[in-house]
């Protein structure tokens, strides 16, 4: 079912890509490194989004919350802790908040889940705004402690880990159980699956990666405020990217994140005024004409089968 690509070739390709990426800071100009860093950030957000939302089909629009929490962790802790510890703290904060959101949304699925998670993430953004304004008395915060090279390496590691996690979960019995939950929570419960624990655990795992991505990415922003850290657009982008790439294949979300981030960087520099318009058109075209994304167009469209492994 893997077509022409043997596992050895695949492994070779992955090692090669990793090697190229890992040596990038030594020979690439700063602006390329910056672009690649944001591509890695979107890869992380998209891939981790698909960990829970791919198999269940529940569309979470709370990505910005976990990402923003990671950013704020970096802003608060950046000057007192070493970078890896800051990133880990961002991830753990994302994880903890993921458990909370998972608990709150436990009874919801489908459309209600999407709307409610979006509402929650807006609530968080406004709460942080209110807090900063009324309690801390600041508008924004400076992020200190890291360089862009460090951000790049952090995100390379986080993106790789999230891809690995998504890959393993998808091929495990857990991935199948999540699919079952998406199809019928009631039947899944009666087949012995602990739906509550699974929903919360895998939602929190994806939030963990989102939080780490935020903490690692904070360095790129240098100055943050609640509106940029909890930017609602961040909640929609992973949905668009994984739909664009196609969620039926492992590489779909990665491809989607790569291409769309690249396109949006180009658009942003060439057509700053039409940027969102063009982006919107892509969104509509994807929904209308590519229901299974790029991977659906490229591959035979065969679903991943658990029993093959």
């Amino acid at each position, binding site marked *: 079912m893997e077509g022409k690509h043997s596992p050895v070739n695949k492994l070779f390709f992955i090692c090669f890509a990793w090697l190229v990426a890992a040596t990038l800071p030594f020979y690439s100009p700063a602006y390329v490194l910056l672009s690649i860093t944001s591509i890695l950030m979107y890869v992380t957000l998209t891939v981790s989004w698909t960990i829970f939302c791919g198999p269940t089909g529940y569309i979470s629009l709370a990505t910005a919350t976990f990402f923003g929490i990671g950013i704020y962790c970096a802003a608060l802790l950046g000057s007192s802790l070493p970078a890896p510890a800051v990133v880990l703290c961002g991830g753990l904060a994302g994880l903890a908040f993921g458990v909370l959101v998972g608990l709150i949304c436990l009874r919801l699925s489908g459309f209600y889940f999407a709307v409610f998670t979006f509402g929650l993430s807006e609530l968080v953004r406004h709460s942080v705004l209110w807090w900063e304004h009324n309690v801390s008395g600041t508008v924004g915060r400076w992020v200190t402690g890291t360089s862009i090279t460090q951000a790049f390496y952090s995100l390379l590691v986080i993106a790789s880990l999230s891809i690995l996690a998504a890959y393993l979960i998808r091929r495990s*019995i857990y991935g*199948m159980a999540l699919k079952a939950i998406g199809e*019928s929570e009631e039947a899944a419960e*009666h*087949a012995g699956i602990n739906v509550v624990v699974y929903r919360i655990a895998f939602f929190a795992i994806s939030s963990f990666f989102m939080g780490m991505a935020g903490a690692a990415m904070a360095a790129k922003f240098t100055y943050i405020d609640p509106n940029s850290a909890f930017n609602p657009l961040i909640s929609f982008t992973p949905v668009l990217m994984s739909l664009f790439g196609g969620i039926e294949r492992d590489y779909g979300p990665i491809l989607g994140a790569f291409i769309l981030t690249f396109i949006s960087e180009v658009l942003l520099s060439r057509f700053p005024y039409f940027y969102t318009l063009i982006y919107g058109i892509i969104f509509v075209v994807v929904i209308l004409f590519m229901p299974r994304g790029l991977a659906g167009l490229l591959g035979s469209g065969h679903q991943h*089968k658990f029993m093959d492994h």
Partner: protein
Amino acid sequence: MAFLEGVKVTKRFGGLAAILDLSFKIDQGGIIGLIGPNGAGKTTLLNLISGSLTPTTGEILFKGKRISGLRPHQICKKGIARTFQSVKLFGNITVSENILLGSVYGKPRGLSRTNHSTETSDLLKFLGLAGKRDVLAKDLNIVEQKFVELARALATKPDLLLLDELIAGLNPSETSLACDKIKEIKKKGITIFMVEHVMGVIMSLSDRVIVLNHGEKIADGTPEEISRDRKVIETYLGEDSEC
């Protein structure tokens, strides 16, 4: 100690008592039929036993331990499996994956992955689904889907199997096939508690029949006793001449 016991179980939906002060005892082994007119509370009773619903008052005991209040996945792991009146499959995964999930997440037996796969294959063969193993469940016809649901329930290795109108909608040859399978399941030592409207099937398969009407038990006995019971004839058999 009864295998399955209900103690003064009541389930209210708003003002309506779908199950009213119902006490029952079921011994291990054999087939128990549950019949009653539409809306009698049969599905509600299965929902109460399998944990979809919790009793408003009263309690349900399985092997002497209280199970009412537990979540469905916990009850499944204790050895109670069920099928649904309207089939509930995992449509976008394959037939064998549907069954494998039941095997992995059902009653814990410390099996390896290979054992679960073998068990899945055996169940596919048992229910004549071997040719469909890699088909997405949603692409099956409704009869095949019912068999997959039965297979998934059996995969959890239940001691008690709850069937909610498995036969409904099957043609005569499918019905007799299903009846043969039910008898074979009984031979494996699994206790079967089945809801069915087809009286011929219930009367021939069951060792004991319980009749519900408006959430209350109006009769309980062997098929012969039930078919002679005045109350049952008046409320149920009289208006329903399927047998």
